[in-house]
């Protein structure tokens, strides 16, 4: 465990390869959890106040754009489903595809991409700036462990907020899709919701929530790994910020596929 606790101290050293980064990321994750669990016993508690602050930034502040995106996704799915099912006269079953794909796929994925672009980049940039300004060194010499102070709150906040955003996206997408479908088919909105609820199993919801949590942790780790291995001044900050967004979106998509594969076997 000692190695994990001191993980962040390896910060000055560049992690060159992908596997180095994965190793560093896992160490950071272990250290974050460690500080979360036993920090208070070592006089280094992870502050609830800081977790809330991050949750506010990551989740609450993203609500308007999250609503807009998921609402549009709901409309898009409704349009596509009516078109494709209309090819063989099965429009009435549009709710099945919409309910399942929203809960299992679109909500977690779209919210993760949104958060990676919005918050992952901000976290990477912030950490990179702090590293370059020696603020991380300053924490270290004060005896404030940088992992518990900077990383743990971010990991927790992302792991908690992304599922919340995904749940919200479920509601909004279902609403807009139902609105469109019922208008197009001249049926009732209530019937659409009812039908959707009968087809949706708790397992489907959990599938989406589980993925969202995983994506949240991934975004946090990719941002922290990139931010803390920055080199070369302001230009370096820009570079790791971009890199962090690209890497997390790639990892989200791959993890999504793997998760779907494993969870449906």
């Amino acid at each position, binding site marked *: 465990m000692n190695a994990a606790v001191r993980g962040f101290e390896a910060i*000055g050293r560049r992690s060159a390869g992908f596997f180095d980064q994965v190793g560093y990321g896992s160490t950071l994750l272990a250290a974050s959890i460690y500080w979360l669990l036993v920090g208070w016993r*070592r*006089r280094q508690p992870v502050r609830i106040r800081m977790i809330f602050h991050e949750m506010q930034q990551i989740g609450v502040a993203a609500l308007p754009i999250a609503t807009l995106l998921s609402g549009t996704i709901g409309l898009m799915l409704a349009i596509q489903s009516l078109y494709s099912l209309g090819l063989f006269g099965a429009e009435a079953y549009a709710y099945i595809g919409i309910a399942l794909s929203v809960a299992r796929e679109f909500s977690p994925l779209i919210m993760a991409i949104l958060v990676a672009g919005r918050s992952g980049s901000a976290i990477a940039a912030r950490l990179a700036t702090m590293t370059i300004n020696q603020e991380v*060194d300053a924490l270290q010499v004060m005896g*404030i462990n940088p992992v518990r102070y900077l990383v743990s709150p971010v990991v927790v906040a992302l792991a908690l907020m992304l599922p919340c955003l995904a749940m919200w996206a479920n509601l909004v997408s279902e609403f807009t899709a139902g609105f469109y479908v019922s208008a197009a088919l001249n049926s009732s909105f209530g019937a659409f919701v009812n039908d959707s609820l009968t087809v949706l199993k708790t397992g489907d919801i959990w599938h989406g929530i589980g993925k969202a949590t995983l994506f949240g942790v991934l975004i946090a780790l990719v941002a922290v790994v990139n931010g803390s291995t920055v080199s070369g001044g302001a230009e370096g900050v820009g570079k790791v910020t971009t890199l962090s967004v690209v890497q997390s979106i790639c990892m989200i998509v791959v993890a999504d596929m793997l998760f779907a594969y494993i969870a449906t076997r």
Partner: protein
Amino acid sequence: MTSAESQREALHHIAALRAESTAQRPTETELMARPKVVEVDHLDFSFGSRQVLYDINLDVRAGEIMVIMGGSGSGKTTLLRHLVGLMPPQPGKVKLLNKDMGSLKPNELLDLKRKIGVAFQFGALFSSMTVAENVKLPLRELTDLGEKTMDIMANLKLEVVNLSGFGGLMPAALSGGMVKRASIARAIVMDPKLLFLDEPSSGLDPVVSSALDDLILKLREAMDISVVVVSHDIDSAFKIADRITVLDQGHILAIERVEAIRNSTNERVQNLLNRRSVEAEVDPAEYLRRLTGD
């Protein structure tokens, strides 16, 4: 600590700081009789294949101001980073207050870190917090003090470095000298036994830089701490140091009291002193005086 205690301490500090610095430099024997607060033992360090520090042996005595002086790139910052535990010694040993940082348990290490304060070359203030929040951060994260007490202690330290009234500003709004002083305030907020300063006078105009020298001298008196200053500023070093360590391309050339460094017959030490004088274009009389160590 209660508020009343803090306030009493505040008055004590301010009284001590108002008084002009009168202390004489301790004699060699006086100095050597004091306990060691920093010990460096056969420290080597390389960045990859490039060796930056060669067999560094050094000690700092209680209450001493030790200036580590050397040209740019001579390894001063690297040495300082070893002293404060940011770089683990590869071969060699660093002891602070008689404790070897490498072999301490986490809780002991934390206790030790509370007893040292570090001000970085560029301040390293947290840019997302006000100056006062910066100064309060160690208190907030490492003690159980109430908000009121923390305010008092932070204001006290800001007053010590002559920044009272600037606590509400963000670091970006401060001038270079103010950033240095704010970072010193943060470094001393836990009342450390040992203070490390990296290039306190670099990038400052002579007047501000000289005021900072006075501040360092007064801090030592008021707070009874030992100070390690890294600097390439010869004037400043001569003014504040009890002893000077001359670092040249990673080698220690001399560790001597100020007069001995001034009069050093070591060619490289003289080169270092002179090169700086030429660069600064001081008037010839002053230059000659410095050369002859008058």
